[in-house]
């Protein structure tokens, strides 16, 4: 049995519902679970706002020292750090599970996933690279950004349950317990950068180079879209799933807040895909859910008197720079 899941807090439930709806349309045989990094009982979510999907709350999967993780991470880091913990829960507690597929909540699945399920009969891991072909300009994001944050996009990963993947999940858990940070100078970029090691440390990895998998703002240079009779195509192949990373329905003119390469004027081929996403998020009440603060994340205090603090610390910073022998930004 294939189980697909996503992870989010209540503020992203419109996205998760949209993903769930798309899986229900295209792959009704796949069991879909929303891993919720939040507490429904504390949020007082009214019954009619519960998504019509299986919900598995973070405190139910038995993470050792969850408090420590919560104290250590912000909302993005925590939502990414718990990925292997959920996968292990599915492997260990749902005996029929043979494949686990993770999708970021901001993905829509447009096609049957039978190709992926067939691949998982031969491969233990399926990963999608950010880029399949070189990107020759230096706008954002470019190849250097991917070198700093990971060759594969971890908005998607598919695993076939095997000794290999069980070992990987355990290793990943250990890494993400305290090193699911964004610290580029030290090689860290949440859960994603660690996954670069998968094809090196483990066998049976398939790197999927189908242009219809994990199409997103970072690989638009190599993908042209079209729509015919209600079906979306990319480079004349069906779009299997599109990843709307960085899209904000409140700013519908921006493809993604993380890129500066394209806009919708240059890329009218993207409009049908995004128009549909905008409608779906609206229908799934994004405006309502987005206002919830995550139960697990303590609000960071705003420290006052920043100018005074800067002036006070400047001599110490200067001395430190001198010791380090180079300017510190």
């Amino acid at each position, binding site marked *: 049995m294939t189980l697909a899941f996503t992870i989010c807090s209540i503020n992203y439930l419109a996205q998760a519902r949209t993903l769930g709806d798309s899986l229900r349309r295209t792959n009704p045989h796949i069991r879909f679970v929303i891993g919720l990094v939040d507490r429904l009982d504390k949020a007082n979510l009214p019954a009619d706002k519960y998504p019509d999907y299986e919900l598995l709350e973070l405190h139910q999967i038995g993470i050792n020292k969850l408090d420590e993780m919560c104290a250590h991470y912000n909302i993005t880091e925590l939502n990414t750090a718990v990925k292997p913990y959920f996968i292990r829960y599915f492997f260990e507690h749902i005996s029929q599970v043979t494949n686990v597929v993770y999708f970021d909540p901001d993905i829509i699945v447009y096609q049957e996933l039978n190709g992926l399920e067939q691949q998982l009969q031969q491969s233990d891991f399926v990963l999608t*690279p950010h*880029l*399949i*072909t*070189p990107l*020759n300009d230096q706008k954002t994001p470019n*190849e*250097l*950004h*991917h*070198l*700093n944050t990971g*060759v594969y996009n971890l908005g998607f990963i598919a695993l076939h349950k095997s000794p290999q993947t069980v070992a990987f999940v355990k*290793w990943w858990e250990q*890494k993400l317990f305290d*090193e699911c940070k964004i610290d*580029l*100078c*030290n*090689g*860290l*970029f949440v859960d994603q*950068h*660690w996954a*670069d*090691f998968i*094809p*090196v*440390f483990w066998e049976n990895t398939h*790197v999927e*180079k189908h242009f219809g998998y994990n199409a997103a703002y970072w690989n638009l240079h190599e993908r042209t879209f079209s729509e015919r009779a209600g079906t979306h195509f990319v480079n004349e192949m069906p779009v299997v799933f599109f990843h709307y990373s960085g899209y904000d329905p409140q700013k519908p003119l921006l493809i993604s807040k993380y890129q500066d390469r394209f806009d919708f004027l240059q890329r009218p081929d993207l409009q049908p895909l995004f128009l549909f996403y905008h409608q779906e998020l609206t229908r799934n009440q994004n405006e309502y859910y987005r206002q919830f603060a995550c139960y697990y994340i303590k609000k960071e*205090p*705003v*420290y*006052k*008197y920043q100018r005074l*603090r800067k002036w*006070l*610390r400047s001599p*110490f*910073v200067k*001395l*430190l720079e001198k*010791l*380090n022998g180079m300017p510190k930004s």
Partner: protein
Amino acid sequence: MTCVFTVCTAQQYPFAQQLGNSLPVGVLFKIGLVKGNLKAENTVAVEEIVIPDFDQMQARYNDDALVAACKPFFAHYFLSQPGVEQVIYFDVTTQLFGDLQLITTQLATADIILTPQLRWPMGKVTYGDEKQFLNTGLYNAGFVALQKSQNTLAFLEWWQARLTDRAFFDLCHGMYHDQLWLNFVPVYFEKVKVVKNEGWNVGLHNLHERVIGTKGENWWVNNQTPLLFFNFRECLYQSKNGTDILQKSGTNQLVNSYLKSIKLDKSSAPVFSLYQQLNPVVAAWKRWLKQKLLYIIEQINYFPIYH
């Protein structure tokens, strides 16, 4: 025909000679010389090959980055020589211990051969841990083997274009000379083989997972795989952790005999060491003062006046 080559400065020539001596007799061996004057029969000066923006590269890079950046240009040059079908690049600090054919036969089915820095998850060991390989490269650029093909030429052109202006040592911005770029290679190009044999490309960075020993006349890795080639680059500098790893992995004898054969002492060897860059020797008082300063800055930043 196979051409084995390395790229270095004139100062590093003794290393190149030692690499050449370790190769089988009759193998074509070339040395790409990036800086300095040296007339030896198997050297090719960088001025002899076509690098369109070499002047700018010279201006923007230090010697270490320049040597690294010229690698794909030399590879392309040697691959274009009449009769040459394969090229094998070794870092200048490499020595071959086994049969070169073990590499060339792999090129019958692959266009591009790379070796990973690490073979297995490492946990935390004295060398560091896995994350430092995430922004310095999954594959070690001290070895690349190439079969002549359109695919290989496309790879070299792609690598050349990047190394022309993005071969700095700047880990915070996704750059580590020529090496970090290799992360893309198995994704972008066809017929790429990552050889995970533990006897290939042994060096300080993977000695925590390998034990070196002799059986009869030959060196073996983990008591089960013949040692094919060893890169001494990171073993040339003395550090406490480095010494510990050499000791534990049984590599001291190997390193010492290498140093003796190139007649250099450890301190005078002018080769870039990543380990040294990442773990500079800092005097105790400096380390203490730095910690104090960081503590004071933190206190000023986070003294709780907030609403």
